[in-house]
């Protein structure tokens, strides 16, 4: 009996206008979206490769570690291929960060912004599933029960010896399966096309992540479809059902996820970024003054160094120059210590600011968990490595990398001066003898870390699915078919 019911449901949906429209939309938007975004990814990967090669060449030309300390380096972060499917918190592909020993790392903005694309950002797969397919799920299911009641076929069906739970399950499975067909076909076709054209290459881990993202999308659509079936069991007329569902959709998909971050900002205000920066700089400047200028002045006083002494140095004679090199070594060590202190101050202030922002983020996540759309998009973005927590991790790693660069730059500088002192003024060519410059590595979270990041959202989706399913079942058991 179940097979008959399922067959009937699938046939009804397959022959309906809504299926044709869903198939058309999926084919047009998903395939073109994946292709265009992959092409754009391919371009940004080329740009990244070029910028990386330039940066490597520039690093090879560096002749003294002071260049790393003062001018700094540019970090080019590789674009993430999964951003094609889940754009996440930042629509830029790849990033360029300017980092040195004495300032906060600076994220460089894009050189040129396409104003039309900025006004209407294209839709990635996650947003397509989250917004358009959820609306399609509503269109597929809003009259599952009440529509049949209006047509009078439900009464006829229930006059046969068929249990209600079987009818409901058949309706759910039939409708949901037909909803998934155009989406999955379009995703497979889109991915196959870009792979065939060589625009996108995914590793084994990325394939797995993409599968999980699509799987999450299926769970999300199941939640929406189940809620739709539930509302359809509550309403007596299709028009009432659709009105209720569209209002719920507006709130859950468009209103709550968009408004909550702003509400969180109002409820948990973070300290002003400019004020934080001002305080940070004034404290850092004081410490710099104390650690470098005053200590150097003390050193000069105790060793009797003055302007006249500097002028009297004969730079060709090692005996005359030695004191100057010793002083320079002392100065470098003070600078090293002061830079570390400054970094500590920066990080302390940064932590204060970041704790407030993390509070906002947590509140936003709790507020938005009422919306299945947010649970899905945030979890998908985290899996793709483009989510909010991934960004926080990236910023923390960046701060850690700056500390490594400070130690590396000053350490190399001190080693050069020590070598000069040990070898009676003989200098070493740093370009040939230095240890490799530390590289910034950003690996997306994997395994247990990733599971921890998305577990709550996945559980929330599962909970919603079970709740709406139960509610739908209870509502249909008592549904008046007359």
């Amino acid at each position: 009996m179940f097979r008959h019911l399922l067959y009937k449901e699938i046939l009804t949906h397959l022959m309906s206008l809504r299926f044709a429209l869903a198939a058309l939309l999926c084919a047009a938007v998903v395939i073109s979206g994946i292709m265009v975004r992959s092409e754009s990814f391919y371009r940004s990967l080329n740009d990244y490769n070029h910028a990386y090669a330039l940066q490597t060449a520039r690093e090879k030309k560096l002749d003294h570690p002071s260049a790393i300390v003062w001018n700094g380096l540019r970090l080019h972060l590789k674009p993430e291929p999964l951003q094609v499917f889940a754009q996440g918190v930042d629509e830029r592909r790849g990033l360029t960060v300017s980092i040195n020993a004495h300032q906060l790392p600076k994220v460089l903005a894009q050189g040129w912004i396409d104003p039309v694309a900025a006004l209407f950002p294209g839709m990635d797969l996650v947003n397509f599933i989250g917004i358009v397919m959820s609306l399609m799920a509503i269109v597929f299911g809003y009259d599952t029960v009440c529509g049949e009641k209006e047509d009078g076929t439900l009464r006829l069906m229930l006059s046969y010896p068929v249990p209600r739970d079987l009818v409901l399950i058949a309706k759910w499975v039939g409708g949901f399966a037909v909803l998934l067909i155009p989406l999955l076909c379009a995703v497979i076709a889109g991915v196959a096309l870009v792979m065939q054209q060589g625009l996108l290459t995914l590793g084994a881990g990325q394939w797995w992540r993409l599968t999980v993202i699509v799987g999450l999308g299926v769970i999300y659509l199941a939640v929406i479809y189940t809620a739709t079936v539930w509302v359809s069991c509550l309403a007596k007329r299709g028009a009432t059902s659709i009105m209720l569902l569209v209002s719920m959709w507006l709130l859950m998909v468009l209103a709550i996820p968009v408004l909550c971050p702003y509400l969180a900002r109002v409820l948990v205000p973070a300290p002003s970024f400019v004020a934080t920066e001002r305080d940070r700089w004034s404290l850092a400047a004081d410490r710099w003054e104390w650690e470098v200028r005053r200590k150097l002045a003390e050193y000069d006083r105790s060793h009797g160094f003055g302007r006249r002494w500097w002028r009297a140095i004969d730079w060709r004679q090692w005996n005359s120059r030695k004191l100057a090199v010793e002083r320079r070594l002392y100065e470098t060590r003070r600078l090293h210590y002061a830079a570390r202190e400054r970094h500590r101050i920066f990080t302390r202030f940064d932590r204060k600011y970041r704790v407030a922002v993390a509070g906002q983020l947590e509140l936003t996540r709790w507020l938005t968990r009422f919306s299945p759309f947010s649970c899905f998009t945030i979890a998908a973005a985290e899996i793709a490595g483009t989510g909010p927590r991934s960004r926080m991790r990236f910023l923390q790693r960046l701060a850690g990398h700056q500390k490594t660069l400070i130690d590396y730059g000053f350490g190399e500088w001190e080693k050069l001066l020590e070598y000069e002192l040990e070898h009676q003024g003989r200098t070493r060519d740093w370009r040939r003898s230095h240890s490799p410059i530390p590289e910034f590595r950003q690996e997306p979270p994997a395994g247990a870390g990733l599971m921890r990041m998305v577990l709550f959202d996945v559980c929330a989706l599962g909970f919603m699915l079970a709740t709406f399913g139960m509610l739908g079942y209870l509502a249909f058991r008592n549904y008046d078919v007359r």
Partner: protein
Amino acid sequence: MLLHLIRKEIALHLVSLRFVLSVCLCLGLVGVSICATSARHLRARNELAAAKLRADERLRRICSQPDPRQRYSRIFNIEGIEEPVPLSSLSWLSQGVQEKYPRVFVVRLGSTMRLDRTMTGNPLAGMLRAPDFVFVVSALLSLLATMFMFDAVCGEKEDGTLRLMLANPVGRHQVLLGKWLGGYVLFVAPFILAVLAGMIHAGSLGLLLPENYAQIAVLVSGACLYLGVFFNLSLCVSCLNHRSSTSMLICLLAWVVLVLVVPGLSPVTARLLVPCDSPDTVRRARQAVEREFADRRKALFHSARGRSDRDWRDAEAGRLDREKKRALDRIMLTRDRQRFRQQALARDLGRISPAACWTYAAVALAGTGPDALARTEAALHRLERDTREFARDLRRARDRSPGRAWPDFGLSRVPRLRVVPASSRQAIIRALPNLLLLFMFNVLFFMGAYLRFLGYDAR
């Protein structure tokens, strides 16, 4: 008779679930949106003022140094001129492209850094569109408007009341007009109320400036016009169908296509139709030009090796430099032209959708659209040029002075970023074509509904 029909429509809607839902959503969404964005704007404005103060103080500190040479090198080579990018006074109504734009420019001789502070705030805020007034009207209220009218005619046919109504001596145009007017007034009234409440709140925060009244009035009228488009569209679809479920399906699909798909696809389609050279291609073309001129220069110096005429060689080298600059400028000009053509096509393609027309009109009125971006870019180019010229003048003055002493200069002579915002009149004129298009959409859909309703089979 028309009055009776309007009264009937209003009474019918007033007791319906959709009206209650629309009022709640309208008041809630518009109110929360204006509260959230105005609080954010206030904060951003204060931050901007503090950043400006800090930048001024830093420049003043540099300029108070006694050695003009150090002043020169710190301003033009080391620290640069730091300029926070100004905010539009109406960005609380429409964020536009401002959110994606750099927050600070640091201009040095030969290089400009564009700093981005979007990495510092709540990352979830950047994941979707900003919940500003324009977004609420464009995506949320347009869907409500569509849902308000999708069964205006076919629903009555299904209930059997249309047949009864048309059995009375009443013109079909009157029926349609009555339906439209009754529904529209009832839908727009809570929206206007919500906007008024939002404006009072914004006024209490000091965000309502007298010079912006005209822009705000046009913006709210434009919103009503835009909502009218979806009202008329669903009315037209309702007249085209005989079952409300089919009508609803088509209306929803039309909404998805017009609001979500077409505007997003327009820049993509424009990119495909008018391809623009990628940065990589431009870089390669520039490198090729530079290589070619380096070879020509080498050949010139090689040929001049035996000659004693150094003036001739220098003149030729100067000519080569000028030629090279022209060739490089040509490459950049071609790229800029391609970008401009692509943008224009994307804008025109997007105008198929009323949502895009409304957004273009709104961002033009709020001063946060492509036009404002172009003004800021122009101001930045002016600042770069002034910086170059000022530094050149200082160097020339140093070269001319005996003992190559650096000339003295104060803070007042240091070039600054001056963005000239569009006036109220300019903003309204820029928004007018898009508002006219919205009006045309209204007329088109209403005419479609009218023509279809004239021959509608009410049985």
